[in-house]
């Protein structure tokens, strides 16, 4: 059933000629437990082209966040390897910026300082003015133009996550990793932030991977939705191209005749 649906949805697969930005090769995550090894992920293959926006969906606990933290270098890779721009990943680094689920801003710093601490690491030789300009540019883009000097603890959750997004982009990463960045927000704020994210991304065209369990979010944002099977031994079960034109607009997408077919296809996968 699902295979037929896919054929109808995607009769022709256009060869993507962009270079590979991120390659996950045979990667596995195994946690040793007293009762023997517990394999969360196994033999997982994933290739992402430069400038592609990927979203990964799957049930809670399927290991999608584990996969993302392994790419980020925050979690050891048990088997296999991750390559970014041809180089094998060793440990975390600002070339793979992460927007975490909780905003993870330092509450004792202002919004500007929170972005600045990253910018200083990535552009150590820039002048102070240049660094300031970078921070202000991105904060302005995410709608915090008037709140540079507000303490992070004084901002609302949604505002904090905007700063988190600004910090991610300001690092000029090769890959931007988003770990359910809107999971803790109410649905109105979530919609606003999706728009903000998409707007900045449209300008920067940074390769992005977003983990989510929101089907609509994954369709709206991504070029390709990766569906993961439930763990243990989770792997990529299926993938779906979302060929909507960019720049995207929420209303146009919701009214697009194919939208519900894509949505149905993803829901079908998740419900089986």
């Amino acid at each position, binding site marked *: 059933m699902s295979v037929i649906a896919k054929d109808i949805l995607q009769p022709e697969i256009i060869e993507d000629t962009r270079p590979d930005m991120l390659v996950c090769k045979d990667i596995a995550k195994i946690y040793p437990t007293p009762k023997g090894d517990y394999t969360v992920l196994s033999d997982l293959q994933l290739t992402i082209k430069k400038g592609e926006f990927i979203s990964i969906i799957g049930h809670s606990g399927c290991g999608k966040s584990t996969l993302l933290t392994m790419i*980020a*270098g*925050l979690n050891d890779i048990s088997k296999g390897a991750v390559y970014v721009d041809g180089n094998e990943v060793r*440990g*975390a*680094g*600002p070339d*793979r*910026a*992460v927007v*975490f689920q*909780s905003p*993870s801003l*330092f*509450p*004792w710093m202002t919004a500007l300082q929170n972005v600045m*601490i*990253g910018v200083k*690491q990535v552009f150590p030789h820039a002048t102070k003015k240049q660094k300031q300009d970078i921070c202000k540019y991105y904060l302005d883009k995410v709608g915090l133009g008037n709140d540079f000097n507000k*303490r992070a*603890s004084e901002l609302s959750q949604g505002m904090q996550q905007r700063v988190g997004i600004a910090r991610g982009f300001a*690092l000029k990463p090769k890959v931007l990793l988003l770990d359910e960045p809107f999971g803790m927000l109410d649905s109105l704020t979530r919609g606003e932030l999706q728009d903000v994210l998409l707007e900045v991304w449209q300008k920067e065209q940074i390769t992005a991977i977003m983990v989510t369990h929101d089907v609509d979010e994954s369709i709206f944002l991504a070029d390709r939705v990766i569906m993961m099977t439930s763990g243990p031994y989770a792997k990529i079960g299926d993938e779906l191209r979302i060929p909507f034109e960019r720049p995207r607009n929420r209303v146009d997408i919701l009214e697009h005749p194919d939208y519900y077919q894509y949505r149905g296809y993803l829901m079908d996968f998740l419900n089986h």
Partner: protein
Amino acid sequence: MKERILQLTGIQAFLAPWISVIKGEEVQKNVQALLKSYIYPLLSILLFIGIWHAGATYLFNKEATAKIEKARTERGEAGALEMQNCIISGDVSCQPNTLPSPAKVWDAYLSLLADHKIISAKKDAFELKVAKTNEKRIAKGQDPITYTGRPSFVDQIKTSLKTVFAGFLLAAFIAIPIGIIIGLSTTLRTSFNWLIQILKPVSPVVWLLLVFMIVKTVMSDSDMDKSFMISFISVGLCSMWATLVNTSMGVSTVDKDFVNVAKVLKLSIGQNIFKVVLPSSLPMIFTGLRITLSVAWMVLIAIELLAQSPGLGSFVWEEFQNGASDSNAKIIVAMFVIGMIGFMLDRIMMVVQKMMSFNK
């Protein structure tokens, strides 16, 4: 800033109902708030004084009866009558020695203040007298002559405060750096944990003896104030544990998200400590310092009492040994002063602690 301090100290909340009543806003609600925050506490104070007074009267009568009976058995009916008259007349030589009544404590307080005025006047006069001589002595490179008369009660309080702050600073300078180092490394934490756990519950008295042993030897040929050194080092050693444990705890339990951000940004070890670990553990460190200060003040009195160093502790002990008619009342005055200063110190630390916490 001023408003913020008022708010943090609780002064604002304390004064708010008055202001509202005077302005005529929500009178009934604010009168109730006034009752709650002024009248009831005031009633509880009156109740306390009442019980104290009743208890003191009972003890006084009991002691007086015993004295009269004793006089009767020793010197017969005439002796008993003489003793009774003596007690009623208020003669200091035959007053029953027991818990003083609130009124006596108040008198003792006033007499201590008066005493302070007399001593300060003497001190000023003395300084004026030796001013010229001292100038000459200093010019010659000699030590100036200082007043060595009996210290007043207020002087004792100042000395105690000086000692407690010296001890507190010592505790902070030892405990915070060690706490940070221990907190950063699991290995160090597990290897030193036994030492901390064993030393933490050691009584102030034992610390004092230990410090005495060391200071006596180290400073055998120095003419610095040994008793001050001994008491403030003991206070520091007794009180530093709360800060040490809290600092290492704060440093070792930095939010996992912050650690991840630091990793992604590839912060250096120095940046990690000063930009992430320290700021995020500041609230814990200041909670520790607050406990340290209150412990320091509490053990100070005991230590001064034992070390024979000047201060409130030795004041209490001297009055107890003295046994004059108003000695007991003076001890009670000292007790209230100690309590109130402790309360004030804790309030100050609470304000600092609140200013340091970022989850406002």
